[in-house]
């Protein structure tokens, strides 16, 4: 990405038909630590890698509960993510106050996207620098959405965003056909396996990772620390088993970090140009 004369605000087009500010915002999402989301017919699971600013600091929160039926994982500017999560919480609370029912996931995602779009068309604003993976369960079943700073939003069966997410995406693309009928346990396992692909330094452990679940008769819940540990342990055990028998369902974790050098430019079309 190079500076040019058309990138100082988001109301100026470049001759190539791009709005660079929006693309920079989307770049901010790619620099955040990875987050993955996937769903079965009953559940949605979000999993994130957390970063610590220094050895002395705590890990930055990446998963936020929106309501009993919905939560988000964020990647990019955490501060922007917090603002959006507060907005989403407020909308959910207001909706259940008035209608006595949970707000539809798709409708809320649309509202958030509209809110993000406004920021791409005002000279005095900047686009949000955060990507949201929204997982929720409503009367039309489980949903997984990805909200982009450009104001675009997509519904996915499984998705990954953030640093090195291409590796996680590759895993998900290979496995997603089995997700539909997977149990909650299996979904969590797949989420952790795919996240592991995006792991940069060291191992996935119960401290630098948090997982959330939501689904049929399952209110949104975040697994971290001690509640996550059994799942990580199970993962490690399976990994070890796989190494020994050499069936290796998941690609070796060591491969993953290497594709940072080749950022996956073509994997997603520049969102700002989509109609």
């Amino acid at each position, binding site marked *: 990405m190079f500076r040019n004369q058309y990138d100082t605000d988001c109301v100026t087009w470049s001759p190539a038909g791009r709005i660079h500010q929006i693309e920079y915002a989307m770049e901010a999402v790619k620099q955040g630590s990875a987050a993955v989301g996937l769903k079965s017919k009953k559940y949605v699971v979000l999993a994130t890698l957390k970063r610590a600013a220094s050895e002395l600091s705590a890990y930055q929160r990446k998963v936020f509960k929106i309501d009993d039926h919905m939560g988000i994982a964020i990647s990019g500017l955490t501060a922007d993510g917090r603002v959006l999560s*507060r*907005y989403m*919480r*407020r*909308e*959910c*609370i*207001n*909706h259940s*106050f*008035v*209608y*006595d*029912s949970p*707000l*539809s996931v*798709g*409708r*809320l995602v*649309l*509202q958030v996207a509209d809110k993000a779009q406004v920021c791409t068309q005002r000279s005095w604003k900047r686009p949000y620098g955060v990507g949201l993976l929204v997982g929720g369960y*409503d*009367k*039309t079943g489980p949903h997984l959405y990805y909200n982009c700073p450009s104001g675009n939003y997509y519904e996915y069966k499984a998705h990954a965003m953030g640093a090195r997410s291409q590796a996680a995406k590759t895993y998900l693309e290979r496995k997603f056909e089995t997700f539909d009928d997977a149990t909650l346990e299996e979904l969590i396992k797949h989420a952790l396996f795919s996240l592991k692909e995006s792991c940069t330094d060291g191992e996935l452990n119960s401290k630098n990772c948090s997982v959330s679940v939501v689904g049929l008769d399952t209110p949104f819940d975040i697994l971290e620390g001690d509640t996550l540990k059994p799942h990580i342990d199970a993962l490690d055990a399976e990994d070890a088993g796989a190494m020994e028998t050499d069936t290796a369902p998941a690609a070796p974790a060591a491969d993953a970090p290497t594709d940072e050098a080749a950022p996956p430019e073509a994997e997603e079309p520049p969102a700002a140009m989509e109609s």
Partner: protein
Amino acid sequence: MIPAPQKHSYALGPGVVAPAMHPEYGRAIQELNNVNYPKAGGQPFVVDAGHGVGGPHQHTQYPYVTGTSVLALKYKDGIMVACDTLGSYGSTKRYKSMERMKPVGKFTLIGASGEYSDFHYIMKLLDELTTDDYCHDDGQNLTPTEIYNYLTRVMYNRRNKFDPLWNSLVVGGFHNGESFLGTVGMVGTCYTDSHVATGFGAHLARPLFREKQYDDMSEDEARALLEDGLRVCYYRDKNSINKFQIAKVTAEGSTISEPYALITEWGYEAFVNPAAAAVGTW
């Protein structure tokens, strides 16, 4: 009066405001309450001085064209609602073919007694919501419970502004195999039950319902019972006419019948000389 635009949150729909929020939750109230709230600071620009800030604002102080009782009950296949088609202007029988029951979406039906123009306003609000649902095109529609809760909020909000919507509403619906029947009054009083009646119906028809209604009753039984209720309301409520509509909401959706008359019998001795048994009455 030029109606001021009704700004509202999409999550809430028109006519309602959110509960007071913690400051952390943003300026929701400020923005929702004041339609003319300037987005970039400065003085509000007021088109309709009577509506936004300052200036006397006339509230409804009494109803003009009104409808009388609405009766409704649960039966085997869903909900049955009935009322007459009279619009009274005071004690004048002013309009004789007013439809006081309207469908909302596919699975809900609203029956209204009280001020007819307020009912139109309420229907406008609900139309806005159902249109919104249609435009989203995501297969999600308001359920009867949601409509009932929404109306409760609207009625209660207007009562809080000392500008009530002068209606008693009956909300009947059938959704996902479950029937729903509730009622909302002009100050937001609301409840759900197996049978409800507004206005005089609460005194005249509900005793019959209490005795005979049960949730598994057949359609014919329900219709007969409802007609009994209508008949007794017609006998005793002078602001009613013998022109009724019966509506039902079932798994197939809602249908409202054409207006029809009931067979009545005025030859009873008590009707011929009502004062005979009560000395001193007129």
